[in-house]
Every structure is written in C-alpha cells, then in structure tokens.
C-alpha cells in the first residue's frame, strides 16, 4: 500500500494543495501573486515527484490501487507529467497575464489545482464512474476558469456554451456507462475486458451501444468531428492562459483515458477501428477547414487543436492493444502541449490589456519590435506544423510510423495531406510577424517576466523533446 500511495502522491499533492490554496484564498491579505507562486511551487513539486516516480520505478507496468479503480502505468505517469507541466506553465503565464487583465481572484489557482487533480485521476482511472467523476471534476473546474472574467460577455458566453454542451456530453457518458454496466455487469475496465473476452463484443448490443455513447463523450471532450463546433468559441471566450491549459492538459487527460478505454480489450478496439478511422479523417479535414478562415489566433489555435485531435485519433486507431505502451500518444501529446502552451504563454503577455491583440493582423511586424518573442512563437508554430527538428516533427513521425505499422496506409496519407493543408495558417502568422512592418509598439507590462520566461523555457523544450525524445 505504501508503494501505491507513493505512486499516487502527485495526484494527492495537487488535490490537497488545491484545498490548501482554496483555504488560503479566503484570506484577503494573500495576494494572487503569492498564490501564483504557490501554485507554481505546487505543480513544480508534483512534477518533480512524478518525474522521480518515473525514474525510480521505471519497470512497473501496472500497479493497481484502490481496488483496481486506479492504475499507474508508464503511460499514465507520462500523461501526468504533461498535465503537471501544463499546470506549471499555466500558472506562470497567468501570473503575467493577470497583471494586464486584473480580474483575478485567489481561487483561480486552486481551481487549476483541482482541475489538474481531476485530470490526473482521469489518466489513472480504470472504472467508468471514477472516470465520470474525474471528468466532471476537471470539467467543472475548467468551466469556472473559462467564465472567470465575469465582466466579460464573451467569457460568460463561452462558459454557457461549454457547460451546456459539456453537460450534454456528460449525459451521454452516463447513459453509456449504464449500458456498459448492463452489458458487462460491471463498470471496471478489467471486468469489462474479461466479460468481452468471455462473451465477445460484436454480439453484445449493450456493450456496443454503451461504448458508443462513452466514446462520443470522449470525442466531444477532444473536439473531434462532429462534436467540434464549440471549441473555437470557447477558446476565444476564455482567458488566454486558461485556453492554453484546456487546449493541452485537458486534451492530454482525455486522450489518456480514451486510450486506456480503447485498449482494455482487443475486441472493443477492433470494433471501433473503422469508426475512428473515418472520424479521425473527418476531424483533421474539418479542423483544417475551420482554421483556414479564422482571423483570431485563439480560434485558429482552437481549430488546429481539432486537427491535432485528428492526428491523435490516428494513433488511437493504430494502437496495438496487446503491447500498448502509449508512447506514441504521450509523445505526441507532449509535443503538442509544449507548442500550444508556448504560444498561449506568449499570447498571455503579448495580448496586452483586455486581450487587445488576438488577431493575425495585430501581430504584424512583431519580429521587428520583439524578436525573441517572435522567434519563440515561430518555433512553436513550426513544431505544430511538424517541421524538424522540433518536437512536433518527431510526434508526427511516430504517429505516421504507428499508422503504417498498423497497416493504415490511407490514414497516414490523409494525415500527411492534412498537415499540408494546415501549413498555410501556421505560416500566415510567421509571415505576419516577420514580413510586415510593425504598426503596433507591442508595449506590455514589462516588470513581470514570468510568462516570457515560461515561453522561452517552452521554446527550449520544443527542441529538447524533439532531439531527445524519451519514449516510455
């Protein structure tokens, strides 16, 4: 049991830390700067703990805790590290962001901690209702964070849309869980798997229907087609650090649980290969189509997030349920997260007061005024576009390798075509930043270097991950 708790320590740390922060926030005297620092410390410690765990117990594939409701594997640990890293970076960007957009209250950081706690649970959860609750912890915290700026109509609208559709999707999840419970007699992954092995999957209508609804809920959370429409609006309405957080950490957590769910039985995975095949293709293409016409960076990034979900779905189609390590998915998520978070961190401080700079046109000539920021953004964009030697390239490389290894040549080709389609809107920002003359002076609150530092560190991470990918 000792060992188990050690493995869960990061999650517990974040959960308890979140409660602590919440309590601390009741004191008026504690400013949000201190809260931000504490949040960073919390995530930092948890991250290091997770890292230590990974290094110290590298070979334990499955460690069951809490009656088999939670499982720790290399994959969950890697996802956990990504989530904790995202939390850390978000705290750092938020620190600077709230200097220019003063609507922060101290609860902000506790909510981030709670949502991270939910995400960590989600990665490890091996039981549908635990998944549901973890999903809701995460989602509720994110809903609140999205609508945090109460004065802003757009933020309110975003939270309305997100909450309404999220709850709608949650309802599908519960119905799906119910049907799976009906079909398999249990909601625990191991028992579902055993039931499928014993009775088969194809003939079990309740399992098919149940897994359908559960997967729909997951697809909603990762904004796959046709459940993608909310994502641009919500990303645009949310404040920038939060957008970054939900674009990365949330996606990581959901993909982790999605993968865990799909690999629980070969029959289940096989049954969904065809469906996911089409969904991933449609997701990539629809994401690109949405992204092309966007003028706002956040919306473009939201749409590109849809495309990246499509790539990850390729990986899900291509996973081998027998020898699943999740390395490909975790790596891609890490690469994607670093890139996306980096841009959002940069936007957090470049956006200025009331996020006045959010459109492509607003960033004309950035390179002439702030060359380092422009360079960092360029690196992130190149990583997202998959240009070597960035992390995004290796991510794409692994995805396509896994697709071709699994015999999904068509999927690989569609993935490539989709990246060609996506090139324009990534390059467009680079072109705007570099090849136009500056009209804006890009003055920002320069005393608080936290977000710039975060941006630079992430830019380095892009190369670090790209050149030395630690595949678990």
């Amino acid at each position, binding site marked *: 049991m000792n060992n188990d708790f050690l493995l869960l320590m990061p999650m517990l740390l974040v959960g308890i830390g979140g409660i602590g922060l919440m309590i601390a926030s009741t004191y008026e005297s504690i400013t949000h700067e201190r809260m931000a620092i504490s949040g960073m410390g919390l995530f930092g410690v948890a991250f290091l703990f997770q890292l230590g765990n990974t290094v110290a117990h590298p070979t334990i594939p499955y460690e069951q805790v809490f009656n088999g409701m939670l499982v720790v594997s290399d994959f969950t640990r890697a996802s956990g590290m990504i989530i904790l890293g995202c939390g850390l970076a978000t705290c750092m960007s938020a620190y600077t962001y709230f200097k220019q957009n003063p609507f922060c209250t101290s609860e902000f950081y506790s909510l981030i901690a709670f949502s991270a706690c939910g995400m960590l649970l989600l990665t490890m959860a091996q039981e549908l*209702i635990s998944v*549901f*609750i973890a999903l*809701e912890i995460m989602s*509720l915290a994110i*809903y*609140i964070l999205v*609508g945090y700026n*109460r004065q802003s*109509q*757009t933020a*309110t*609208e*975003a*939270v*309305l*849309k997100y*909450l*309404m559709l999220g*709850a*709608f999707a*949650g*309802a*599908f999840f*519960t*119905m799906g*869980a*119910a*049907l799976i*419970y*009906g079909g398999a*007699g*249990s*909601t625990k992954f191991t028992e579902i798997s055993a039931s499928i092995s014993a009775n088969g999957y194809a003939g079990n209508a309740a399992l098919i229907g149940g897994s359908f609804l559960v997967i729909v809920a997951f697809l909603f959370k990762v904004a796959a087609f046709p459940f993608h429409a909310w994502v*641009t*609006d*919500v990303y*645009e*309405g949310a404040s920038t650090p939060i957008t970054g957080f939900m674009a990365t950490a949330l996606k990581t957590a959901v993909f982790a649980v999605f993968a865990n769910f799909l690999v629980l039985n070969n029959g289940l995975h096989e049954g969904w290969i065809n469906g996911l095949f089409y969904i991933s293709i449609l997701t990539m293409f629809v994401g690109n189509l949405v992204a092309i*016409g*966007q*003028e706002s960076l956040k*919306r473009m990034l939201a749409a590109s997030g849809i495309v990246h979900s499509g790539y990850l779905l390729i990986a899900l189609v291509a996973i081998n349920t027998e020898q699943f390590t999740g390395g490909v998915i975790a790596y891609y998520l890490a690469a994607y997260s670093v890139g996306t978070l980096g841009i959002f961190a940069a936007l957090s401080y470049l956006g200025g007061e009331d996020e006045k700079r959010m459109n492509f046109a607003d960033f004309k000539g950035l390179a002439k005024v702030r060359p380092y920021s422009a360079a960092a953004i360029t690196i992130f964009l190149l990583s997202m576009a998959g240009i070597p030697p960035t992390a995004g390239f290796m991510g794409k490389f692994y995805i396509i390798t896994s697709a071709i290894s699994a015999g999904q040549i068509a999927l690989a080709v569609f993935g490539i075509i989709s990246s060609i389609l996506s090139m324009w809107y990534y390059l467009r920002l680079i072109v705007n930043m570099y090849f136009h003359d500056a009209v804006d002076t890009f003055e920002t609150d320069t005393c608080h270097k936290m977000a710039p530092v975060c941006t630079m560190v992430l830019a380095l991470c892009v190369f670090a991950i790209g050149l030395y990918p630690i595949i678990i």
Partner: protein
Amino acid sequence: MIHSYLMVSVILFCIGMLGVISRRNVFTVFMSIELMLNAANLAFVAFSRLHESMDGHVLALMVMAVAAAEAALALAVVILLHKHKGKLDTNVFSLLKG
C-alpha cells in the same frame, strides 16, 4: 420486465435530448440535461436489478452527486447570464462565432 424499465429510460433520455436541441430557454435546457441523467440513473438501477448486484445503486448515487454539482454550477452560470443580458435565451449569446 427489466426491458420495460430500460425502455422508459430510453424514452426519457430521448425526450431530454429533444429538450436540449429544440429549446432556447436556458432553464429548460439544463433541466433537460438533468432529465437525461435521470434516465441514465434509471438504467443503472434497472441493470442493477437485472444483475442483482447493488453496484448500480452506488453508481446512481454518484451520478446524482455529480448532477447536483453540475446543477449548482449551471445555476450560477444562469445567474451570471441573467446579470449580463437579463434574458434566458441561449440565442442571445452569439458574440463568438465564425
């Protein structure tokens, strides 16, 4: 006989969906979602009866808790919306689009 309970559950679930997609009133929409959760709960309990295991009951309890939390949050959002626009129409909120 469990089938009939399940069918009731499905019917309620569908009515809930219908409420979500056909109504613009925020309250109605949220209550429709609650209805869907209840439908799921009914399914849990029915299956629990089918399998003669009480796990379903526990699951239903959990769902209720989640529903409660969600409802609390939803109501908070409704209040926020009302403060902004004084309306409960979801269509009023379409600043973000394109």
